[in-house]
């Protein structure tokens, strides 16, 4: 359509965006400056370019003035470039020759880069000048159609990753679900009960994980990590390293005889550091796949070349000490990152003595203690002496809403602390006195406020104050907390047998490396960054790569599921035709050619 020989007729529209732009920059001066720019044959102003009327004006201008290149000086291209490209296309303009540049960021209230009107004028002139130059030098080559692989890589086998897998597998895509642990299910499998309905966590999780494991279109790759990612949407080439289990999965029936006989013990990561497991183990009874795994770091054969008892006792001959790491190469059309979160390590907040005081634990540890399948078989016993605590204090916002650690609210910890109170008061230890020390209680979600009210009804002391420090009584190992509640007015010294810290949710280790492999951005807190927090919450800066669940931001299970379905839907929209058109154009700047 547009070619080298053709005369370049550039039109520019200065958008007022109501007062968002016009209120902060001298439009008249800007107008005059743009008129003088090389190649600009037409310039006009619009009050709201994105409105129907504004778009009609643009189309009319393109046609009347025979414009073949057009620049809208208005707002963020991630918001509206597509709008204006569609608008121009209707007037016969190639989308590659429609540009949107953001001059609003210099003038709009709330913009982090807002400047005074003089500076706004200079900045806007400069941006428009560059855009005009760019569009003058731009050449297009025809769009190319590329075939897309009908397969998807999902990284992280928590509830978000599993949900996205099922959505896509049911639509017919081949899904590779990569999980670095030996089981899929993520944190949810270890939470015992799930607010706001208090269903049993494994009971509502297992139908999903079991289905994912059995689904003809899903290949779960546990004990695996992504090592390399190449390519682009429709055609990613990835390498995945599957570490050895030292068990032949097909032969292992999960009978557990090997575990019983194994003489070597190791700390149990599935009991949040509060119990032991064997060197050969199955993470938990509902693990999927239900296969044993040998932890070489604690196995006597790998460490001292002795033992091999498991090999002798296994009735199916499943043990294979010779297994080697396997590099798996895949071609996939799209990628979903669902790597979840980790609990903040509160030992950094030395005033609370986590790690020093034996009876200060985290909420995740409490979840394991309350769990019937946990290290204490559901008995709430304090770590130092195995006695039932008479008084329990919970401290909210540990490592959250705190400028010295993480500024954000983790959003879920108020709710899971309330859940643990309900479990303790209604099931495990009704006589325990519970103190809930909070800055404020955040119970935002369907049924959540009602859940909070129900918890209050159990007779809990809600103290509106954040303890400044904890002191341990070295004899009783009890803990003294100093709290100030404005309703009481006096300083309160809380004495508790057990203190539970509601810790922030933070990005899991390895997030930075993975983001570099994928070439996608992280936000200021280290979570994966979405294209737009409101309008494109699961898209990333790389087309074909999506995020969901706590990998994007701390959230509860309902919201993780919503995002998983959203990410799956984005993948489907891109891949369903089996072919996509990639816009390609060249900008000639001197000797360099930029392809995009």
């Amino acid at each position, binding site marked *: 359509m547009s070619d080298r020989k053709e005369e370049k007729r550039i039109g520019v529209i200065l958008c007022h965006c109501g007062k968002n732009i016009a209120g902060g920059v001298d439009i008249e001066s800007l107008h005059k400056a743009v008129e003088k720019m090389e190649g600009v044959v037409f310039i006009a102003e619009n009050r709201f370019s994105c409105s129907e009327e504004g778009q009609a004006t643009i189309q009319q201008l393109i046609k009347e003035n025979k414009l073949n290149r057009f620049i809208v000086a208005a707002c963020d291209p991630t918001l509206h470039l597509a709008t204006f490209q569609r608008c121009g296309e209707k007037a016969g303009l190639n989308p590659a020759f429609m540009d949107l540049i953001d001059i609003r960021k210099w003038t709009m209230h709330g913009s982090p880069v807002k400047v005074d009107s003089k500076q706004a004028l200079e900045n806007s002139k400069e941006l428009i000048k560059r855009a005009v130059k760019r569009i003058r030098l731009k050449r297009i080559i025809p769009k190319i159609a590329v075939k897309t692989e009908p397969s998807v890589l999902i990284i992280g086998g928590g509830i978000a990753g599993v949900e996205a897998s099922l959505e896509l597998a049911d639509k017919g895509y081949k899904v590779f679900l990569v999980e670095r642990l030996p089981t899929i299910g993520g944190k949810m499998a270890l939470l015992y009960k799930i607010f706001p309905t208090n269903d049993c966590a494994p009971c509502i999780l297992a139908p999903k994980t079991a289905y994912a494991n059995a689904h003809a279109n899903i290949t779960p790759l546990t004990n695996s990590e992504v090592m390399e990612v190449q390519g682009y949407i429709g055609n990613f080439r990835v390498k995945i390293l599957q570490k050895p289990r030292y068990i032949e999965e097909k032969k292992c029936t999960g009978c557990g005889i090997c575990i019983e006989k194994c003489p070597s013990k190791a700390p149990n990561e599935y009991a949040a550091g509060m119990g032991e497991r064997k060197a050969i183990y199955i993470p938990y009874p509902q693990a999927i796949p239900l296969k044993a795994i040998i932890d070489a770091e604690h196995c006597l054969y790998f460490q001292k070349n002795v033992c091999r008892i498991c090999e002798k006792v296994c009735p199916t001959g499943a043990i294979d000490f010779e297994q080697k790491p396997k590099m798996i190469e895949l071609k996939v059309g799209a990628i979903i990152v669902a790597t979840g979160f980790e609990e903040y390590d509160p030992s950094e907040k030395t005033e609370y003595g986590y790690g020093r005081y034996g009876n200060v634990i985290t909420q995740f540890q409490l979840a394991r203690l309350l769990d019937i399948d946990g290290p204490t078989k559901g008995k709430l016993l304090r770590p130092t002496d195995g006695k039932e605590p008479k008084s329990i204090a919970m401290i909210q916002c540990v490592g959250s809403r705190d400028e010295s650690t993480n500024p954000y609210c983790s959003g879920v910890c108020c709710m899971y602390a309330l859940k643990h109170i309900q479990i303790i008061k209604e099931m495990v230890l009704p006589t325990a*006195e519970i103190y809930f020390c909070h800055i404020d209680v955040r119970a935002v979600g369907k049924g959540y406020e009602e859940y909070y009210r129900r918890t*209050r009804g159990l*007779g809990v*002391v*809600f103290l509106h104050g954040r303890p400044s420090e904890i002191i341990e009584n070295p004899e009783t190992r009890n803990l003294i907390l100093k709290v100030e509640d404005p*309703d*009481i*007015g*006096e300083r309160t*010294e809380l004495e508790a047998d057990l203190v539970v810290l509601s810790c922030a949710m933070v990005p899991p280790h390895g997030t930075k490396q993975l983001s570099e492999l994928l070439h996608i951005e992280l936000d200021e807190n280290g979570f994966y960054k979405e294209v737009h927090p409101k309008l494109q919450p699961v898209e990333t800066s790389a087309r074909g790569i999506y995020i969901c669940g706590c990998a994007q931001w701390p959230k509860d299970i309902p919201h993780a599921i919503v995002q998983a379905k959203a990410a799956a839907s984005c993948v489907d929209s891109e891949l369903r035709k089996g072919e996509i058109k990639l816009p390609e154009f060249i900008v000639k700047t001197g000797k360099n050619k930029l392809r995009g």
Partner: protein
Amino acid sequence: MSNKIIRTAELDPNFKFEVTAHESARDLNYCFACGSCSAGCPIHEVFPDYNPRKLAKMIKLGLRKEVLSSDYIWYCATCRTCEQRCPQKVSFFNVLNVLKNIAAKEGYAPTAWVEQTKQVMQTGIVFPIEETCVKKREQLSLPSLKGEGKKAKKLIETTGLDEIESRG
């Protein structure tokens, strides 16, 4: 109570359950300390130290003795504004009645209040009638105000009010 440090180890964590065991005060546990009760209370307006929200929290913390021996629980004007305004349907008015009952049984009733009960038992009348008032009524041919002391006594005895002792 300023400058005091409250030590939970010295408190009575069951106090809140003792209070909420009474049907009329059952909802107290739902209180989330919004302060509507205090903001609307006419007595709080006159005596800022009288503060329903604070009393609610003191009950929950288990400051049993402090609450029961406090003069404040007897200040209530029984207007029930607190109950009207509470978004959690707590009747603080009823909570106070429960507190007063417990306090009275344990000898925390204010002297004036016990003396008044005695007077009712004797005369059947809450406030003594002044001589001028009696004369005025006679002039106006109104019936004389004779208290029914005996009946009042019987009534009071059946409620056990007669056994209440003042804190002296």
